[in-house]
């Protein structure tokens, strides 16, 4: 299985943990993720203004590049997934914007949204398959009660993202089950963590995070997993500043658990020869 892979800025810096674990697990699962050459930052937020085209041109370039290889484009960062998928949706559905973007980019061939953008979780669910994944697990996380946290970017807006049932998703729980863990259902799993508000309004975010953490705790969670570097930061750092004081729910990237369950955690990666 071979896919184009779009890493994004955060994965190359503060969320290196997410990328490393994901890539390691992918190799172990026999998935080839070919990092795009000369990828550019997706812009982190999808431009909401109808008239703004420039901010997502870099995304379109990545999408077009993936189309050339004819492969699905895999993302790991929830923000990159969100931006690329929405940019692609616009290219597919809005003729006007599509024409303008093409005119601007002057690609060798017109791009009209032909690439399929998928998230690493979707890769696991649809390409690998959770049953297969479960079979490949070497160290099942049996007995661990883990709460999945989806956040916003994977799920919403539902009409465009079509990632899972937006109000009642199950992909991360299914993933946890595949790893042998017990998934904790709690009401706040699709709430917003506060995103970038942490830059300016830390107190608001701390309150939002507290609700999430408390909800997970009260439903018996021993840890929380997420798929987004920003959620990860907020949940991890700001739970220390929750009004109720310090709480200690560990926060993992979902790929960390994957790495662990596949028993890759402490192994030094063999150099891949390309």
């Amino acid at each position, binding site marked *: 299985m071979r896919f184009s892979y779009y890493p*994004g*800025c*955060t994965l190359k*810096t*503060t*969320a290196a943990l997410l990328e490393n674990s994901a890539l390691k697990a992918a190799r172990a699962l026999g998935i080839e993720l070919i990092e795009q050459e000369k990828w550019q*930052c997706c*812009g*982190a*937020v999808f*431009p*909401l*203004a*109808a*008239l703004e085209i420039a*901010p997502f041109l870099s995304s379109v370039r990545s999408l077009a590049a993936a189309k050339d290889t004819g492969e699905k484009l895999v993302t790991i*960062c929830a*923000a990159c997934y969100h931006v690329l998928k929405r940019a692609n949706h616009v290219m597919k559905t809005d003729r006007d914007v599509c024409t303008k973007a093409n005119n601007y980019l002057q690609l060798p061939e017109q791009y009209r949204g032909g690439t399929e953008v998928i998230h690493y979780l979707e890769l696991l669910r649809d390409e690998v398959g959770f049953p297969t994944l479960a079979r490949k697990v070497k160290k099942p996380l049996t007995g661990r009660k883990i709460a999945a946290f989806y956040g*916003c970017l994977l*799920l*919403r*807006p*539902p*009409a465009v993202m079509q990632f899972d049932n*937006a*109000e009642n998703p199950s992909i991360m729980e299914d993933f946890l089950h595949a790893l042998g863990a017990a998934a904790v259902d709690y009401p706040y799993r699709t*709430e*917003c963590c*506060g*995103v*970038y*508000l*942490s*830059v*300016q*309004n830390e107190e*608001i975010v701390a309150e*939002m995070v507290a609700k999430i953490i408390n909800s997970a705790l009260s439903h018996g969670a021993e840890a929380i997993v997420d798929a987004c*570097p*920003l959620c*990860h*930061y907020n949940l991890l*750092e700001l739970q220390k500043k929750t009004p109720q004081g310090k709480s200690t729910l560990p926060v993992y990237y979902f790929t960390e658990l994957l790495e662990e369950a596949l028993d890759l955690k402490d192994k030094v990666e063999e150099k891949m020869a390309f």
Partner: protein
Amino acid sequence: MKITRDNLCSSIVKEIAEISGENVAGCYQCGKCTAACPVNTVMDILPHQVLRFLQLGLVEALLNCNTIWICASCFTCAGRCPRGVDLPGIMEALRLILLRKRGFSRIKAGVIPRVADKGMPEQALVSAFRKYTR
């Protein structure tokens, strides 16, 4: 309060419609956006009121509220709106009007080193910059 046709169809109202691509008349004030909003408690004008204000042409109040800066674009409201109104898009339009016209920045330069030091992901910084500055 006096309501005039000029207010209702002022150029700025049109501009908001143009930037967001949304028709505020679509909203019938069911309040689901507000009910869905995770940060509604710290907003001075509630999400459904933002639409109502726009329907009434009261743009000035919106440009001076904190709501548009607090909205985190989590899209919960947009996903649940029975009328398919994209409120985050409208919030963005309101922000852009300020950011474009006055060239001001909502972000204080001082915070950057502080937060960056804490290992805050680039994603957070970039989005904050994208939302708060031009």
